[in-house]
């Protein structure tokens, strides 16, 4: 088999896992709360720093810090939604959009003040290690990140489909008044949904920190990617996020090989084409299953 193609396809697969985790939290918040969370990438950045500091200061393995990162960002997300965004949740999309935009700037500024603007990386003993199948290289950390990303996405699916709270979240996304008539506490459900989104962002940040350098401004690129993935795949279901991530990873990897420097432009161009041909995204609009 052609080496470049084989390695490329493996990279697409590995990247799809990480991108799915990057986008799935963004997608729930958009689909259920109708908020385009510009601060999503900033939460990813915070997750990456949680892992970085736990590793650097106390030597905690980056993969073990994922739950810590998730819990911390869950709490932050719950508070942000309950005591800030909930007050304007009924306002037009632009208002919540602006609030999350402001939030992003605040988080990045604070990170720059406390942690400096330098690039940092999490380098463990096993960071460079990997194995190969024929000529195709697979780094252990990328493979582990892939498996964990899929595991967390699967858990989210189980939570949304089979638990009472998960069903309440989906019901709220479909018809908020009908959900209230069943006794769903809306303020709490909104906060829970946003907190799930930020917790998943935290996990994504932790996973990213083991493979890529991190800095306070790293998040913007991930917000953009999450946005494009949601438009590509369609809003409101996990399969849609996976489909969008797969297409995005394909474009990113192969345009990186053949037309380096143009990969973002090509991804956005494909997004525009999808919007014209199929405005509901590849998988269409659904509500969290």
């Amino acid at each position: 088999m052609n080496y470049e193609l084989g390695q490329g396809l493996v990279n697409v697969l590995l990247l799809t896992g990480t991108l799915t985790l990057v986008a799935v939290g963004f997608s729930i918040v958009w689909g259920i709360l109708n908020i385009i969370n510009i601060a999503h990438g900033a939460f990813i950045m915070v997750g990456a720093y949680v892992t970085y500091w736990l590793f650097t200061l106390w030597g905690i393995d980056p993969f073990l810090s994922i739950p810590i990162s998730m819990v911390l960002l869950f709490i932050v997300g719950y508070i942000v939604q309950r005591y800030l965004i909930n007050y304007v949740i009924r306002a037009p999309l632009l208002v919540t959009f602006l609030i999350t935009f402001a939030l992003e700037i605040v988080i990045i500024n604070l990170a720059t003040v406390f942690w400096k603007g330098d690039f940092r990386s999490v380098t463990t003993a096993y960071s460079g290690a990997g194995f190969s199948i024929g000529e195709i290289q697979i780094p252990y950390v990328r493979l582990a990140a892939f498996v964990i990303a899929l595991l967390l996405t699967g858990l989210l699916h189980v939570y949304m489909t089979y638990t009472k709270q998960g069903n309440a979240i989906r019901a709220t996304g479909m018809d908020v008044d009908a959900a209230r008539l069943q006794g769903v506490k809306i303020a709490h459900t909104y906060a829970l949904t946003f907190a799930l989104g930020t917790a998943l962002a935290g996990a994504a940040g932790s996973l990213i920190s083991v493979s890529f350098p991190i800095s306070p401004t790293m998040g913007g690129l991930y917000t953009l990617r999450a946005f494009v993935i949601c438009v590509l795949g369609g809003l409101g279901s996990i399969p849609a996020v996976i489909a969008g991530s797969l297409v995005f990873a394909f474009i990113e990897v192969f345009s990186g090989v053949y037309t380096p420097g143009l990969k973002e432009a090509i991804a956005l161009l494909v997004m525009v084409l999808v919007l014209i041909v199929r405005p509901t995204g590849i998988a269409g609009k659904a509500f969290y299953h």
Partner: protein
Amino acid sequence: MLEIKNLNVGYGEVQVLWDIDMEVKEGEVVALVGSNGAGKTTLLYTISGLLHPMSGSIRFNGQEIAGLPSEEIVDLGITQVPQGRKLFAGMTVKENILMGAYHRKDKKQIQKDYEFVLELFPRMAERLSQPAGSLSGGEQQMCAVARGLMAAPKLLMIDELSLGLAPIIVENIYEAVSEVIKRGTTVLIVEQDVMLALEQADRAYVLDVGHMRMSGPAKEMMDNPVIKEAYLGL
């Protein structure tokens, strides 16, 4: 059971209901009728806590509930089958029906009620894993009533059950409702179809552009010349 006094409700500056007085006694079936835009749905939304009144009182079993959040009102035992069904379209029939029991914790009784509503609407039992959005209008209404019953309400309010449905299906669903009434649930029926509502009810209220115009036993209302002319087209 439910006592409403001097209730005023509006959306922002626009008042929709003026000085509403109404009562539903335990075990009764009460009809609330009136033409389109009279404020019937607004009144139900206010009772359910989706809207907060400008002034006035709503008492349920002696407790003031005007202005309480909707989840507390559901907990007290008031459930609504809303106008337009308002099903969770992307969820399955089973998930929709079980959402009705969302506020309950008595698992064993929930299971019994679940079996009961599926007996009541055998068609729902055949469609459990279908998305609710793919059901026909009549089936959607059955699903909505089934969801409402899963809340084990003391007071069940049904808003415009007949709207847009074939008479045979409406009759079918009302038969199921009368099964529920027999079991002692108090029911408030809201209908545009006045004759249909009066046939089901013990007593009735007539709401007319935000004002309560008339009330009395349903049988008498059917013979009332004003009602006959205004609503029954006789």
